[in-house]
C-alpha cells in the first residue's frame, strides 16, 4: 500500500497548481480510506508511518506540517463509537472537510492581502510562490496598477517561472539578480513573500535568500509581508539558521545519497519574527507574536 500511495502522491505533486501539502493530505485521505487496521491505535500508527513515508519522498516543511495537522484534525473528534468502521467514517468525513477547507485557504489569503497593495505600488517578491501569485492576481483584478520585481532565485531559477506567470496576467514584471536585492530595495514600497513553513516563534522558513531580503527591508524600513495558509504552521522553534533540522534544508534524495552535507547548499533559510511586519493567513492578518497564540489554539 505504501508504494501505491507514494506513487499517487508524486502524481498529484506534478499538478503545478496544487500545494505539496494539499497533495500529501489528499493521499493521506486515500490511505485512510484503504486502511485495514483493526484498532484506532493501529490506525494512528499506520498514519504516522505514512506521513514519514511522504516526508521521505518530499522533504518540505509543508508536507510535515500538513500531515501532522491532518492527523490532529481528524482525531480531535469524539471517537466514542464502539464500532471501528463508524469511527473511521467519522474520521474520513473530517478528513474531507479538512481538505476542502485548505483548498479554499489560498483564496482567502488572496482576498485578505490584496487590499494592502496600493495603486502605483512597487512590489518585491522572492522566488515562485503560488499564494503570492494569487494575491497579485486578486489585486490586478481589482484594477490596481503596480509593478513587480522578482528575484531569480538560484539554483533552480524559480523566479523566472514566476515572472512568466505574472507576464501572462499582464502585470509589468522585472527579474533581478539575487545579489541585487540590496540595490533594488530603495525603489520598492513593500516586500511580499510566501512561506514553506511558519514556525512557533512567528518566523518563517522559505526559499534560501528570504532572510537576506528581510534584513535588507528592515534596514530600509520597508514593510515585509508573508503570505501563508494555516496548514503551514509547524511545531518547530529554531533559534538560528543552524537550528533548522537538516531534513528540511536539503532535498530528500540528497539526504539519502550524500555523506558530507557541508558541501551541499541548503534550499531554505529561517527568517526570525523580528524582521516580519505582518503575516497574512486564512485565519486572519496576524502579527508574528499572534502566530504562537494560534498555534497554541491549534495544538493544545
Amino acid at each position, binding site marked *: 500500500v505504501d508504494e501505491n500511495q507514494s506513487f499517487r502522491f508524486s502524481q498529484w505533486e506534478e499538478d503545478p497548481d496544487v500545494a505539496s501539502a494539499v497533495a500529501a493530505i489528499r493521499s493521506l485521505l486515500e490511505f485512510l480510506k484503504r486502511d485495514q487496521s483493526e484498532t484506532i491505535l493501529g490506525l494512528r500508527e499506520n498514519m504516522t508511518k505514512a506521513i514519514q513515508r511522504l516526508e521521505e519522498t518530499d522533504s518540505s516543511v509543508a508536507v510535515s506540517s500538513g500531515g501532522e495537522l491532518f492527523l490532529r484534525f481528524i482525531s480531535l473528534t469524539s471517537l466514542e463509537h464502539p464500532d471501528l468502521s463508524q469511527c473511521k467514517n467519522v474520521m474520513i468525513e473530517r478528513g474531507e472537510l479538512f481538505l476542502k477547507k485548505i483548498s479554499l485557504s489560498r483564496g482567502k489569503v488572496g482576498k485578505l492581502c490584496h487590499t494592502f497593495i496600493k495603486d502605483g505600488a512597487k512590489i518585491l517578491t522572492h522566488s515562485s510562490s503560488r499564494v503570492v501569485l494569487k494575491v497579485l492576481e486578486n489585486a490586478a483584478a481589482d484594477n490596481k496598477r503596480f509593478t513587480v520585481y522578482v528575484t531569480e532565485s538560484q539554483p533552480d531559477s524559480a523566479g523566472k517561472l514566476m515572472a512568466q506567470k505574472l507576464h501572462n496576467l499582464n502585470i509589468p514584471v522585472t527579474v533581478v539578480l539575487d545579489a541585487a536585492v540590496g540595490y533594488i530595495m530603495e525603489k520598492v514600497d513593500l516586500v511580499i513573500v510566501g512561506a514553506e513553513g511558519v514556525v*512557533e*516563534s512567528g518566523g518563517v522558513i522559505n526559499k534560501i535568500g528570504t532572510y537576506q531580503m528581510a534584513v535588507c527591508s528592515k534596514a530600509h524600513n520597508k514593510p515585509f509581508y508573508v503570505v501563508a495558509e494555516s496548514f503551514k504552521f509547524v511545531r518547530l*522553534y529554531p*533559534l538560528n539558521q543552524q537550528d533548522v533540522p537538516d531534513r528540511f534544508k536539503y532535498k530528500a534524495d540528497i539526504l539519502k545519497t550524500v555523506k558530507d552535507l557541508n558541501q551541499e547548499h541548503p534550499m531554505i533559510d529561517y527568517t526570525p519574527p*523580528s524582521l516580519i511586519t505582518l503575516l497574512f493567513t486564512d485565519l486572519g492578518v496576524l502579527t508574528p*507574536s499572534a502566530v*504562537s497564540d494560534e498555534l*497554541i489554539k491549534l495544538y*493544545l
Partner: protein
Amino acid sequence: MADSDGRQVDGVNHATDKDVKLQEIALAKNEGKELTKEEKQRLRKEKKQHKKNKKDDKGPPEKEKEKEKASVPAPSKPATQSPAHKAAPAPVHASESAAAAEKPAKSKAELRAERRARQDSERTSKQGKKEGGQQSASSKPKATPNELQPVVKRLPEHVQVDDPAALKKLAKKLERQQVPLRSDYGYKVSLFSHLHQYSRKSPPTLQISIPATVIHPSIVRLGLQYSQGIIAGSNARSVALLHTFKQVIQDYSTPPNEELSRDLVNKLSPYISFLSQCRPLSASMGNAIKYIKKEISNIPSQCKEEEAKGKLQACIDSYINEKIILASEAISKYAIEKISDGDVILVYGCSSLVNHILCKAFEKQRKFRVIVVDSRPRLEGREALRRLVKKGIRCTYVLISALSYILPEVSKVFLGAHALLANGYVMSRVGTSQIALVAKAYNVPVLVCCETYKFCERVQTDSFVSNELDDPDDLIVTRNGKSHLENWQTVKSLGLLNLVYDVTPPDFVDLVITDLGMIPCTSVPVVLRVKNVDQ
C-alpha cells in the same frame, strides 16, 4: 491591674461584667495566648461601640482632653524602629488623645469611653515595661479605635513603606492576627524607599514567645529559614511552604461550631502574614497559596475531618508532583532538543531547573561545556558549579564583570526565572537582564526555563516598582582584615543597595521553555488565559 479594679468599683454597677470580661481579654493578650473567637468578637464590638459613640457626639470639652493627655504616657519606642517611623507615632498620638477625649453626652457611654481609655493607658504602661517592640506597635493602633475597619483588606501587591497610612493598616492587620511587625533597618536609597529593608540579624522569630502558641511552630521554623537565607530559590521555598502546610493541616483540629473549609483558611492567614514578614512572598508561593485556599474552600461541609485532611494532603502532594517535579521532567525533555553537540552553554547563578536540565542532557550523552557566571554578594554560582562538576560536566567559572569577555565563545544562554509576568517580562535574580542584554548584542540566543506555576498576573516594566531589598550589610566585605564599609551607617550620604530581583524585557529573550512546550515570551498571557479556562 489592681488600680483599674479599684476605679471600676466606683463606676456604674451594670457595666462591671463587661469590664471584667474586658480585663480577661486584656490579660490573655498580654500573655500572648490566642484569643478565642468570642473574646475577639467582644473586642470588636467594644471598638465598634466606641467608634459609634465618638461619631454621635462631636465637640470634646477641653478639660477631658487635658485629663486624657496627662493620663496617657508616651509609649516607649523600641530601639529597632527606624527614624522614618518616628513621624508616624506622633500624629497617631495626637489623634488618640483627641479620640479618647471626645466626650459623649450620655453618661453611660461617656464613662465607658473613659474606662476604655484608662485601660488602654494602663495596658500601654504595662507593656512599656515588658520587652519586645511588638507590644508598643500594637498599643499604638489599639489606642486609635477610630481608624479600625471591621473588615481588613489584603495588603495590595505594591508595598508602600513610605506611606504612613499603608504602614498603619499593615501594623493594625498584623496586630489583629497577633503576628510580630518587623521593622526596617538602615538608610534606604530614595528610589527604593517604598520597599522594606530588613536586617538578617533581627528576624521576627525573636519577637515570638516560646513556645509559640499563636503561630504553628513549623511555620516559625520555616520563617526563620527564609529570613536567614537557609532555604533560597523559588522552587525550594514553594516546596518547603507546601510541606509545612501539610504539617499544619495534620495538626489542625476543627473547633466546635466551625466549618473546616472556612476556619482553616482563616487559620492560615496569620501564618502567611508572618512568613511575608520574614521574607516577602515569591510569585510561585503566591500561586501555591491561592491553590491551597481554593482547595480548602472547596471541601464539602459534610466531609469528615480526617477525610478532609487526607484529601488536602493528597492535593498538596499532587500539586508538588505535577507542577514542580513532573514539570521539570517535561522541560528537560524539550530543552535537551535544543542542546546540540559542541555547544557552549552559559548559565547564571543557581537555578535548580537549569541544573537539572544540564545534568539530564549530560546523561543523554550530549557533548557540551558550561560557563557559570556568578555575582556578589550571594555567589550562588558556586553551588551550581559544585553540582555540575560533581556530575562530570566541564565547567568554567567567571564573575559577571567578565561577561563581554567570554560571550563570543558562547553558543546559548540558559536562564532560570523567578516569575514570568503577564506582559512577557521575566523576573529573575538581579543580573539576569544584564546577561540577556549583552547576549542580544552578541546575537547569542537566550532561553528562559520556567514552570507554568510561576506565571503571574502582574504587569511590570521596570525593576523599581516591586522588588526585594536584601540586608545591606551583606555588601560589606572584609579583605586583608580591613572592611572599609563597616561603619557605613555613620556616613549620612552613603546608602548600600542590595537588590534581589530584576526584570528582563521580552525582546531580549528568544525562547521560553515551559512544561506546556516552547513558547515565545509574548505568549505568556495566552498560557495564563488557557490556564484560567482550565480551572
